[in-house]
């Protein structure tokens, strides 16, 4: 670690992982409810569990991105963080707001929560992923602004590397697009039109910048390849990601009100979206092959390669499966969508956060060349368990989705099964999904355990 202020990343990473565990637990609750409808329904109804599952995901990723930025920006800029104190304060503000919001979801009926938080003054609640009370949303904006300010000032005062610039562009985009969560027109078409601008322009646009920047940073560190080479790749990837993603996002505009030309724009541009993800795979493997030194933190390299591959599979391949308008006509909002959502979010964004944690945490804990080999072995096992079980979840949901489409969507009216009758038939696949979910939990617990083992072993100093 080059600068003392990089240390502020640590609480962000730790808290992100705690929220991650929460997300998985609520996922398991829902996975069970898919099969046993009234499981815990008196305490955690399905809609609440889903809200907690998705909100925790987004919040822990934000914590992860913030931690990553606080860690890598000072090192890239070659200067201390502008204000470590502000970073610590925003951590606590954000953590308290996140916990309070989640508790609000769990303890108070949603309508009551809206009432207590004066949602009627500026109604923004009640939409998927944007369920947070308005006051939490304002809190998120304040946290993001102070975070971007802190990062921005650090970059302004120091070296302006490509990694830094791409990262901060992504972070500004993240903040700006979040503002659309406050726009809540009564026209449902308009509402939906801009609703997609928040989470989906994140994941298909600006977050890819953040992903690219973090991946590039870790690759520079673990491979020692010239910065110029990595930057050249980063430029191409980012350009392709934005060109394909910003308009490709139009694949959400099929048949929901916006003009028919979106069928073409959305299909063509989103069919190109796998390209930048594949470039990332090419890039990661090429850099590791050209590595100039053997970094002892081998598992961080594994995470970096894994992120590229899994992001390509989840976002690229599984997205492409159902992105063309004539296909999407039948697959829209089926279990196939859930399959894609799981693998893409895990492969691209959950894994990039774990990549930077895997690289940065050992350094912040005084192990510049990575954890002891026993800890790395455990982490590697956790990596494979989580990746393979997530692929298992994805395949189970893909088959369920295909069956759902065959029963419910393709047949002419009259022959088609009802929604619930279809779900009844999909239960075998939901069992497989739930089993894979538990395997994932085992992987996650192993991952957590890897932080605590091998302390007494001889550290693998270079």
């Amino acid at each position: 670690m080059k600068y003392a202020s990089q240390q502020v990343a640590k609480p962000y990473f730790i808290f992100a992982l705690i929220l991650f565990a929460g997300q998985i637990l609520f996922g398991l609750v829902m996975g069970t409810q898919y099969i046993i409808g009234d499981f815990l329904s008196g305490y955690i109804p399905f809609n609440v569990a889903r809200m907690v599952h998705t909100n925790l995901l987004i919040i822990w990723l934000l914590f992860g991105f913030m931690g990553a930025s606080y860690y890598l920006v000072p090192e890239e800029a070659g200067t201390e963080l502008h204000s470590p104190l502000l970073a610590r304060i925003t951590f606590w503000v954000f953590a308290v707001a996140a916990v309070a919001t989640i508790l609000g979801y769990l303890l108070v009926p949603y309508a009551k929560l809206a009432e207590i938080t004066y949602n009627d003054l500026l109604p923004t609640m009640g939409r998927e992923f944007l369920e947070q009370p308005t006051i939490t949303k304002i809190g998120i904006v304040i946290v993001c602004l102070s975070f971007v300010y802190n990062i921005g000032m650090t970059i302004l005062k120091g070296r302006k590397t490509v990694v830094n610039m791409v990262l901060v562009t992504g972070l500004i985009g993240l903040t700006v697009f979040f503002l659309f969560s406050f726009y809540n027109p009564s026209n449902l078409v308009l509402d939906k039109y801009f609703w997609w601008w928040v989470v989906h322009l994140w994941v298909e646009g600006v977050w890819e910048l953040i992903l690219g920047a973090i991946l590039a940073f870790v690759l520079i560190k673990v491979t020692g390849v010239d910065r110029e080479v990595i930057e050249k790749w980063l430029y191409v990837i980012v350009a392709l990601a934005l060109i394909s993603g910003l308009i490709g996002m139009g694949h959400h505009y099929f048949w929901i009100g916006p003009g028919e030309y979106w069928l073409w724009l959305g299909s063509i541009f989103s069919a190109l979206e796998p390209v930048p993800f594949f470039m990332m795979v090419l890039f990661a493997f090429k850099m590791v092959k050209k590595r100039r030194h053997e970094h002892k933190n081998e598992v961080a390299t594994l995470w970096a390669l894994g992120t590229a591959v899994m992001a390509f599979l989840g976002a690229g391949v599984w997205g492409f499966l159902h992105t063309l308008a004539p296909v999407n006509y039948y697959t829209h909002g089926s279990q196939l969508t859930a399959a894609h959502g799981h693998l893409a979010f895990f492969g691209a964004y959950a894994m990039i956060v774990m990549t930077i944690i895997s690289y940065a945490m050992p350094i912040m804990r005084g192990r510049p060349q990575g954890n002891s080999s026993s800890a790395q072995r455990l982490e590697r096992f956790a990596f494979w368990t989580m990746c393979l079980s997530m692929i298992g979840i994805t395949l189970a949901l893909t088959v369920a989705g295909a069956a759902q489409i065959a029963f419910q969507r393709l047949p002419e009216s009259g022959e088609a099964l009802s929604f619930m009758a279809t779900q009844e038939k999909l239960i075998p696949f939901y069992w497989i999904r739930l089993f894979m979910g538990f395997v994932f939990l085992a992987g996650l617990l192993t991952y957590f355990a890897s932080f605590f083992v091998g302390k007494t072993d001889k550290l693998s100093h270079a």
Partner: protein
Amino acid sequence: MLNYKNIFSSWLFMLTLTLISATFAESSDPSKMAILFICIVTIIKGNLLIDNLMALRHSLHRIRWMMLAYFYILLPIIMLTIIFPETTRQLTTL
């Protein structure tokens, strides 16, 4: 390694095999023997492509087997499901 003679003869052989299997397209319900024959022809074509045109015969053994497995596993599945539609139907009814 790429071998000039192998590339050329594989190409000719694959063209011939394609023409032969295309003659079966005339009958709307191919016999079991015809199905077996077409699947074997397809496997041979896959083999030629992988070994000679992709030049994997003497290299990258694991990758080569993963590629060959695609044909060795998928084609028998195709053959069996087509020859035994009744069983397939039973197995895939939810």
